[in-house]
C-alpha cells in the first residue's frame, strides 16, 4: 500500500539557518566538551574513591576521633605531634625502609636478569614465562604461612639445613635484620616474576637491528646486555622502580602474617608504617585521628621519595640515554 506523504512544507529559510546555527553550536560543544566527558568517568570515580578519602582523612587527622564513638574535639596538629613522639613510629619507619631496600633492589636486579634469560631463544618459552608469574598468583597470606614454616626459629626448615652445614640457627623472629631478610624474601618471591614480565615485554620491543649492529661490532652477550638492553629499558626501569617504591613503602600483608600476633614482634622488630597505622586505628587504641595522621605522613613520604626517584631516574635517562642513543646511531651507521 502506497502511503502518500504530506507535501513538504516550503523550506523556511530562517528556520534552516537557525538549525544550522544550533547544529554548529552543538558541534562546537561536541568538540570542546566530548573529550572531557569521555575521560570524566575516571576522574569522577577517582574523586569518589581517591580524592574524597584523601581529604576526609585530612579532616579526621586534625580531630580527636575514636573508631567506634566517632568524632571528638578539634585538636589541630596534636595527632601529628603525638605520632612523631611515639618510638614505635620511628621504629616502623626504619623497618619500612629497611624491608623496602632489601626487597626492591634485589627484586629489580633479579627481574632484569630473569627477563634477559626468558628473552633468549629457549625451549618451551610460554611454560617458563608463565612459571615466573606463578608465585604472583599465590595469595600473600598463603605465602606467609609457607614461609612462616621455613623461617620458624626452633623447628624451621632453613635453620635445620643451616644446622647440617654447622651454622648456628638464625633467630628469624628475634633479630631485626634477620626478620627483615625473611620478610623481604617473601616479597621478592611474590613480586619478582611480575616485574620480570614487565621487563620481558619491554625487552621484546627493543629493535633487533640494534643487536645485529652490536654483534657485527663484535659485542658479546654480556656487552649486548649492558650496552643495548639496559639503556633501552630505561623508561621501564623508571616505571618499575616507582611502582615498587609505592608498593614497598606500603608493605603490610607479609610482615603482618609473619607471626600470629601481627604487630611486628615483641620489640616491633618488623612493624612497618602501615602496620603501625592499622594497630593505632583498629588495634587496641582505636584512635582514628592518629591513624589518619600516620596515613597523611606516609602519603607525604611517598610523594617525596617518588619525586627523588623521578629526578634521579630522569637525570640518568637524559644523560646516559642520549649517549646510548648516539652510540647506537653511530653503530648502525658504521654497520651500514
Amino acid at each position, binding site marked *: 500500500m502506497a502511503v502518500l506523504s504530506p507535501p513538504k512544507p516550503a523550506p523556511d529559510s530562517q528556520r534552516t539557518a537557525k538549525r544550522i546555527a544550533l547544529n554548529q553550536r552543538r558541534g562546537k560543544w561536541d568538540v570542546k566538551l566530548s573529550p572531557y566527558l569521555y575521560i570524566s568517568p575516571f576522574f569522577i570515580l577517582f574523586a569518589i574513591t581517591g580524592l574524597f578519602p584523601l581529604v576526609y582523612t585530612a579532616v579526621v587527622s586534625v580531630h580527636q576521633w575514636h573508631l567506634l564513638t566517632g568524632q571528638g574535639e578539634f585538636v589541630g596538629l596534636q595527632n601529628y605531634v603525638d605520632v612523631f613522639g611515639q618510638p614505635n613510629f620511628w621504629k616502623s619507619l626504619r623497618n619500612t625502609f629497611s624491608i623496602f631496600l632489601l626487597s626492591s633492589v634485589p627484586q629489580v636486579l633479579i627481574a632484569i636478569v630473569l627477563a634477559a634469560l626468558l628473552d633468549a631463544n629457549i625451549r618451551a618459552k610460554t611454560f617458563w614465562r608463565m612459571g615466573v608469574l606463578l608465585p604472583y598468583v599465590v595469595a600473600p597470606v598463603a605465602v606467609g604461612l609457607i614461609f*612462616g614454616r621455613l623461617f620458624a626459629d*626452633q*623447628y624451621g626448615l632453613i635453620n635445620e639445613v643451616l644446622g647440617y652445614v654447622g651454622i648456628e640457627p638464625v633467630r628469624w623472629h*628475634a633479630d631485626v635484620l634477620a626478620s627483615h631478610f625473611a620478610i623481604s624474601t617473601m616479597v621478592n618471591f611474590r613480586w619478582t616474576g611480575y616485574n620480570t614480565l614487565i621487563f620481558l615485554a619491554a625487552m621484546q620491543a627493543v629493535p633487533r637491528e640494534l643487536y645485529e649492529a652490536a654483534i657485527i661490532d663484535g659485542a658479546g652477550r654480556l656487552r649486548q646486555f649492558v650496552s643495548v638492553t639496559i639503556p633501552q629499558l630505561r623508561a621501564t626501569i623508571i616505571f618499575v622502580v616507582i611502582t615498587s617504591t609505592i608498593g614497598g613503602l606500603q608493605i603490610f600483608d607479609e610482615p603482618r602474617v609473619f607471626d600470629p600476633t601481627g604487630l611486628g614482634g*615483641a620489640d616491633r622488630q618488623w612493624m612497618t608504617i602501615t602496620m603501625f597505622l592499622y594497630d593505632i586505628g583498629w588495634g587496641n*587504641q582505636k584512635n582514628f585521628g592518629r591513624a589518619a595522621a600516620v596515613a597523611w605522613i606516609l602519603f607525604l613520604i611517598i610523594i617525596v621519595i617518588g619525586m627523588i626517584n623521578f629526578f634521579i631516574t630522569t637525570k640518568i635517562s637524559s644523560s646516559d640515554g642520549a649517549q646510548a642513543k648516539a652510540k647506537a646511531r653511530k653503530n648502525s651507521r658504521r654497520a651500514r
Partner: protein
Amino acid sequence: MTRSTRNRRLTTVVAGASIFALTLSACSGGDDDNGGTDADGNITLTVATFNDFGYTDELLKEYEDANPGVKIEHTRAAESGDARTNLTTRLAAGGDGLADIEGIEIDWMPELSQIPDAFADLEDPAVEGRWLGWKEDQGRTPDGKLIGYGTDIGPEAICYRADLFEAAGLPSDRESVAEFLGGADGTWEDYFEAGETFAAASDVPWFDSSVATLQGMIGQVEAAYEDPETGEPTDLASNTEVKAIYEQLLAASDTLSAGLTQWTPDWDNAFQNNGFATMLCPAWMQGPIEERSGGVTGWDIADVFPGGGGNWGGSFLTVPATGDHVEEATKLAQWLTAPEQQIKAFGNAGTFPSQIEAQDSEELQAATNEFFNEAPTGQIFSSRAKALDEIAQPFKGANYFAIHQTVQDAITRVDVDGSQDPQAAWDQAVSEVANLGF
C-alpha cells in the same frame, strides 16, 4: 547521513551514560531497602558468627519450622579477627549492614561497652538465671545493661603428657596429677614447684609459653590494669600486683618454659617433638591440641587449675539496635542460647555451654574425649566452670588490652626472643604504656 551520525552519537551517549550509571549503582548496590521482609510478611533474620558456634543448618531449620514466616540466613567468618573488623567497621559506619544477630567474643566487650546504645537491651525475665553468674555479668556493660546472651565458655584445666610424666618417674593418672599440681586449693607456686620436680628428672620443658601462662595468672587479678570505679588506667610502674606476677612467672620460666609463642609454626611442631609436658587448657583447646598431635599419645586432662579457676575466651550473641527486626532477632538469640540448643551445639562443635542447666545435663556429664585417654571432659570442665563462681571476675576496661599487650610483649622479649632481661623488659613496658598517651 546526518541521521546516522546523530544516532551514533545518541548511542555513544546512552552507552556512556549506562556505564556511568552501572558504576555508580555498583557503589551503592547491595542494599535492599525492604529490610528482609517480603510481600507476604515473611521475614529473614541474618545471623553472623565466626569459627564454629555449632549452629548447623539442621539446628536453624528447627527454628524455621517452629516459627513459620521466619527464614534464617547464617554467615560464618573463618576467623574471629575478620568478624571483629567487620563488626567494628560497620558499627563505626552507624550500624549499616550489620546482621540481625552478631556473635562476639568476650575480649571485644571492653570496646563494645563504650557504645552500649548500638546494641538492644536483652534483659528478659525468661532468661533470668540461665547462665553461670559470672558469664551473665560478662555480657553486661559496666552500667549493667545486658547486651549479650552467653553461648560458650572456656573454663581452664591443665592438659598434660602422661607418658612424659611416667618417664620422669611421676604419677601420671588424672587424680594423682591433680594432687601433684596442688589439688583443689593449689597455687601458681605449687604449679611451678611441681615443674621443678619434673625438670629434675626430665629434659622436657614444663609448660609451652609464658605468655599463655600469664593469661591464666592475670585472669585471676580483680583489677589488673585499671580502676574498676573510674575505668582509669592505673600506673604500671607502681603496679606491685602485676609486677609480682611478672617476676614470679619469669623467674619460673627461666628453667620451665619451652620459650614458644602459641599459634606459631614452632609451637605446632613442638607437639610432635615432646616440646613441653603441660599447658593451660581451656575447654576449646582440646581440638587444637589433637590437631597438632597426630601420632602422639599420652595427652590427658587433670581437673585442677592453679589459683582456683580460670576462664579463657567464650562468646555471646548480641542484637544490634539498628536492625529491622530487633524483637524477632532477640527471640531467636534467646532460642539459640537456650540450654537445649547449646547442648546440641556442644555435640556439633564442642563449644562448652555456659548455661547451668546444660552443664548438669546427662549428655554433657557423660561426654568423654577419646584422644585425651578417655578423659571425662564433660565432668572436668563443668567442675572447672563452677570453680569460677567462687573467684572474682577481672575488670577489663577500655584500655585493658592495650596495657596487657605491652606486658605480654615484655614477657615475649625475655622468654621467646631472649633479647632482654626481665627488668629491662619491664622498664620498656612501662615507657610503652606512657607512650600510649591515654
